[in-house]
């Protein structure tokens, strides 16, 4: 038996023994996920037990080095772990912007002290992070951000406003883009700063969305003092860190196109599809696109791990994955008819389908709009001319 086959058998046995039955049920919505944090809220004991068991093995971040709390697994082993988790429907033990976004940036740009301090805590789910990127005047044109960060000798002083900060009201810390040189060209005066959301001068205000939920906040900084060692990467070179991190954010969002399930939409919709030939045709076409994209995701991840992916490929994945996810929810609404229009009834699980449908409309806006991604593909992959 090869080492990988042994690893698969051991992994399978360990998962069987350690993944509680409740954690093999599909995640219902964002409130059903384990986010960790300084004051973690667990929905039940199983959720806590599962996160801690996985964290103890380094398997919340299986491919990070063991020195930083990871599992130290090779790309092949990581893939096997994910396959074995999928086999029993095991949930992701820890949802975390620290893992999916900040961690990779710290691994690449952090100092040794920053890596040891932050990464181990991220791996154990002890810090819940939010991302301070967009501002009221800096959306698609992110590099025009104005949040001011001044050098006050023994600390940084931060003043300004962020917007679309996911779960800022629940986060412990923020990774934030700030302007450290207002005189420099816009891409060259930005730094990447980490700070505690409990710092004096930080306040948040949730934004009510069309879905009726408030996953995003406005975040205000009023004379916030930040220790000097909390800049990641070089001063005024934060745009490099930001772009690198955005690549990982786009990968994460592109994964939403997979719908978090292994079957097809046609199977999930059942009766409604059989009764309507035109809808059945649309759903069948969607399932072709969806299964093809699933293969694309597998290929992309394999290439990424092997260092074979084009650096701008995450933009393609983000574009295709989010557009696909929007298409899925349009079809869910069409198939559900007036049942899915009920907004508050228990029958409709408080308008679950409708609220998710509306939520997905943000997928092709957040993390860089579809139009921004298409522009990146055109310029960086197809090498088309122009600004």
């Amino acid at each position, binding site marked *: 038996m090869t080492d990988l086959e042994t690893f698969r058998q051991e992994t399978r046995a360990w998962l069987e023994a350690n993944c509680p039955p409740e954690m093999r049920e599909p995640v219902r919505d964002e409130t059903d996920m384990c986010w960790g944090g300084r004051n973690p809220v667990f929905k039940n004991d199983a959720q806590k037990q599962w996160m801690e068991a996985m964290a103890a093995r380094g398997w919340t971040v299986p491919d990070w080095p063991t020195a930083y709390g990871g599992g130290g697994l090779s*790309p092949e082993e990581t893939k096997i772990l994910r396959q074995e988790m999928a086999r029993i429907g095991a949930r992701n033990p820890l949802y975390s912007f620290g893992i999916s976004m900040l961690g990779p940036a710290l691994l690449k740009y952090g100092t040794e002290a920053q890596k040891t301090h932050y990464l181990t805590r991220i791996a154990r789910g002890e810090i819940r992070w939010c991302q301070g990127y967009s501002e009221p005047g800096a959306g698609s044109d992110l590099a025009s951000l104005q949040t001011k960060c001044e050098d006050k000798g023994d600390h940084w002083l931060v003043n300004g406003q962020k917007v679309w900060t996911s779960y800022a009201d629940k986060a412990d810390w923020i990774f934030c883009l700030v302007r450290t040189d207002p005189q420099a060209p816009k891409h060259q005066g930005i730094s990447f700063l980490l700070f505690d959301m409990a710092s004096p001068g930080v306040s948040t205000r949730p934004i009510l969305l069309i879905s009726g939920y408030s996953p995003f906040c406005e975040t205000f900084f009023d004379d916030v003092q930040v220790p000097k060692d909390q800049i990641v990467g070089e001063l005024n070179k934060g745009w490099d860190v930001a772009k690198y991190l955005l690549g990982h954010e786009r990968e994460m969002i592109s994964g939403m196109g997979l719908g978090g399930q292994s079957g097809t939409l046609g199977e999930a919709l059942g009766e409604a599809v059989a009764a309507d030939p035109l809808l059945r045709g649309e759903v069948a076409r969607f399932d072709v696109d969806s299964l093809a994209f699933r293969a694309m995701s597998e290929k992309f991840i394999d290439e990424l791990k092997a260092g074979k992916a084009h650096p701008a490929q995450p933009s393609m994945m983000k574009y295709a994955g989010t557009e696909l996810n929007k298409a899925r929810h349009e079809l869910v609404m069409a198939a559900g008819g007036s049942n899915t229009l009920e907004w508050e009834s228990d029958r409709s699980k408080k308008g679950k389908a409708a609220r998710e449908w509306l939520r997905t409309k943000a997928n092709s806006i957040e993390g860089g709009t579809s139009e921004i991604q298409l522009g990146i593909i055109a310029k960086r992959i197809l090498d*088309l001319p122009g600004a």
Partner: protein
Amino acid sequence: MPLYLTDDQTMLRDTARDFMAAEGAIATQLRHWRGINCKDGFGHGLWKQFAEMGFTGILIDEAEGGLGLGHVEAGIVLEEIGRNLTPSPFLMTALAFVEAVKGTTHAARWYPGILAGETVAALALDEGAKHRPEAIAMRAERAGNGFKLSGAKQFVVQGASADVTLVAAQADEGLTLFAVEKGMAGLEVEGVRLADSSIGARLTFADVEVDADAVVGEMGGGAAVLSRVLKAGRTGAAAELVGLGTAAMDMTVDYLKQRKQFGRLIGEFQALQFRSAHLYSELEIARAATLKAQQLLDEGSENAEAMVSVAKAKAGRASQLAVQEGVQMHGGIGMTDEYDIGLYMKRDRVLNELFGDANYHADRLARLKGY
């Protein structure tokens, strides 16, 4: 197995790419044979060169003189064929027919000629304008020691040049496949030039008598053989479509970097940039789906069936988008025969119909998934 080409496969791709660009180019192959109104629509010399390169034996076991490789490798060659619109019997002979007779008595009869690049094989399945292999009506009646075949077939690619044609017909025992040699009495072959200047054929069988040993596999066991043939053919056609679509896109993107209007390169216009980027995305996804189908086939996975239909449908749509955008973005010159982009559009249409179009395969996926 990771979903990208291994080092060996990458080497084969580089070899195939160089070979096809040099020997299978549009100017010297497609335009040449079209120009002299060739009755075969392809060059026998090139087919021999394919054999010398080992391509024709990719799916034939090493024990039988082939390379003993798989559908990934066959697809690598087909992608390059697609890029260059290289006319050849490769898909029908080295994939579909080789798979059909694998493990049967016919392998020893036909493999040597295929390995030598001398034998050309065809597939007679379709009986109407659309691909409906589940509705084959052609009859095979017992007569003496053999059978009499009656009925008509169309869209038999290379049917006018084939030394042997695999024919699907209904016998009393059920669907059965026959290997029918050329020149049989009662078999009328009408070569027809298709839009892409390849040669298809309409075959009419009027009580064509064949021996019992013409049966491929078991009597009534045609469904199993046909399933292998169709999976190989569909996946191969998907690979050719991916190559074709990619070449059409590359040609178009190059053109956007040269053509000036309003004092600017037209590639600077966002309207064209976005459409090009969307096309790139579709072709990348089609390539991934096709590679996944090839790997599943090579692994003998039971999930291959659905993925083959996904690949054929997705590659068909992506390639179709590539040629449509290609002609439109080339503007007026895209409509001229002198420019190659139109040749890509015509070949794409043929390949989309071959082995079932995107609607057929979306419907098939739905049926496989029980809806």
